[in-house]
């Protein structure tokens, strides 16, 4: 198999969540000395493809999760090669579910999509206070902060968190999302971006940070 064929097959294996096949193809690509950046792009392309299908309701949470699993296992093979080549994550993202809210599946999907796009992700979990967001964003030098809320009752906490992050003077862009969140609410509370689902968050991140 030619190098481009291997990488195309890797992209397809990621997109369709064929974990063992993806790992085997990644090993083959590494053994063949494929350029690390191209291998990384092949992984990201697979996640982007499943993300597009997710946004179009052609793929659903099971397909996204199996793709993310395949990506994670393949990335484990690739990571030492990336380190040797000096390739670092494109952005650092800090993510969490806002204070008072214990939901996590939406946040986890966003974290997976970011990781699949070569972002370093710091997942703060659920019920995260504004102070914890500020501290983590500063400690890790976050480029982007993702805030999730699943309940109407915790939307005020999202607003408080955005306000606190602004007051702290952090440079990171803030993207919000979750079931009760709308683009107009995002604008109203002063967030930089809004993502209607986990796939949209990658597009929104690129829109906010096109030079990245």
């Amino acid at each position, binding site marked *: 198999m030619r190098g481009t064929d291997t990488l195309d097959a890797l992209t397809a294996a990621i997109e369709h969540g064929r974990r063992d096949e993806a790992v085997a193809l990644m090993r083959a690509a590494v053994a063949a000395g494929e350029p690390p950046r191209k291998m990384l792009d092949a992984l990201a392309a697979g996640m982007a493809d499943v993300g597009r299908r997710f946004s179009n*309701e052609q793929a659903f949470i*099971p*397909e996204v*999760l199996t793709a993310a699993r395949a990506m994670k296992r393949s990335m484990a093979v690739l990571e030492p090669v990336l380190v040797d080549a000096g390739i670092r994550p494109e952005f650092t993202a800090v993510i969490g579910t806002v204070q008072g809210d214990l939901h996590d*599946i939406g946040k986890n999907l966003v974290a997976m999509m970011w990781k699949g796009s070569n972002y370093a992700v710091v997942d703060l979990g659920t019920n995260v206070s504004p102070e914890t967001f500020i501290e983590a964003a500063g400690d890790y030098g976050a480029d982007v902060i993702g805030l999730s809320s699943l309940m109407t009752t915790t939307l005020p906490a999202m607003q408080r968190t955005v306000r606190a992050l602004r007051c702290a003077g952090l440079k990171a862009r803030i993207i919000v999302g979750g079931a009760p969140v709308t683009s107009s609410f995002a604008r109203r509370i002063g967030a930089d971006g809004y993502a209607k689902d986990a796939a949209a968050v990658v597009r929104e991140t690129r829109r906010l940070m096109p030079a990245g």
Partner: protein
Amino acid sequence: MSNATLTCEATLTGRQRVQRMFARQDHDRVPRHDTFWGETIERWQGEGLNGDARHVLEMLGSDFHQIAWCWPAPLAGRDQVIEVDAQTRIVRDGHGKLVRYWRDRSGTPEHLGFDCDSREKWQRIYKPALLDSGLQINPPAARRAERLGREKGKWCYMACVEPFEQTRAMMGDELTAIAMAEDPEWVADVAEAFTSEVMRNLDAVIAEGAWPDGLWCYGDMAYNHATFCSPKMYRELIWPQHRRLVQWAHAHDMKFIYHTDGNINAVIDLYLEAGFDCLQPLEAKADVDVRKLAPRYGDRLALFGNIDVMVMGSNDLEALEAEIAGKFQAGMATRGYAYHSDHSVPPTVSWATYQRLIELVDAYGRYD
């Protein structure tokens, strides 16, 4: 405004009203029911509500009365408190799930871990435990509750948790989703086993002599943009168990109400194929809209809810009136519509707003 002045006059009993709604026969007003977050009731008590959620339902004129709740767990009665702090309590529950609850407020608990994390563990521990568990419902209590509901003229129902929700409760969202894609026979087996247990429990209530009017089946199959799994996957893995539950209900002359949040627009045809009689609560922010559904499905599927809690929570009374007027008009055109909020009423809604809502439901919900 006193509580008493808001209670609506009735010309039919609640039971008659709901039965006529299901039959698409003329009735006096739309049937009504609602649910509330605990903090909402606390707020309202501070704003003048003299009573609790039951009193609010009486003021609303609720037509529905639950007689039993059925959520069988493999390790029922073996809850273990693992840790308690000032805000939360961590418990290993009867599904083997490690879960953190808020101590002083309602809201969905956080799932910290799931012991049933493999097909092997399901077959070795959880399935045998589930199948060996005794009755997890109290038939004499259900019978007594039914008598009480009948005395009040209410439409009596048993409530149960459906197999997708049961599977997620035991295995977690992520493993459930991955297993649906990678080991579908496992998920189908779990769904079949839980459904059989639910039916065994419900049968015991019937054997006690109760004869409720409906089965209200709870499960959240969707989030705000789509269903958790594809319609095809739903059809293959979960739908057969939904159809079993519907067939059980219909065999006992009961109607089948299905509760799910989220955007379920893509699977409504499958719900109809399974024989569902009613959908509730029709979450507005998930693009579910009775004005679109009623013309298309209203003759075959009763629509229950859809009044947007976000609009309620704005406390904008003009917007609330427009919300109720428009949706009631669409739903009532089919004679197959009942009032419910599109989720649970949140504490952003003031007591004054909810009292106004009751007036609006009464004003716009009359068929005269």
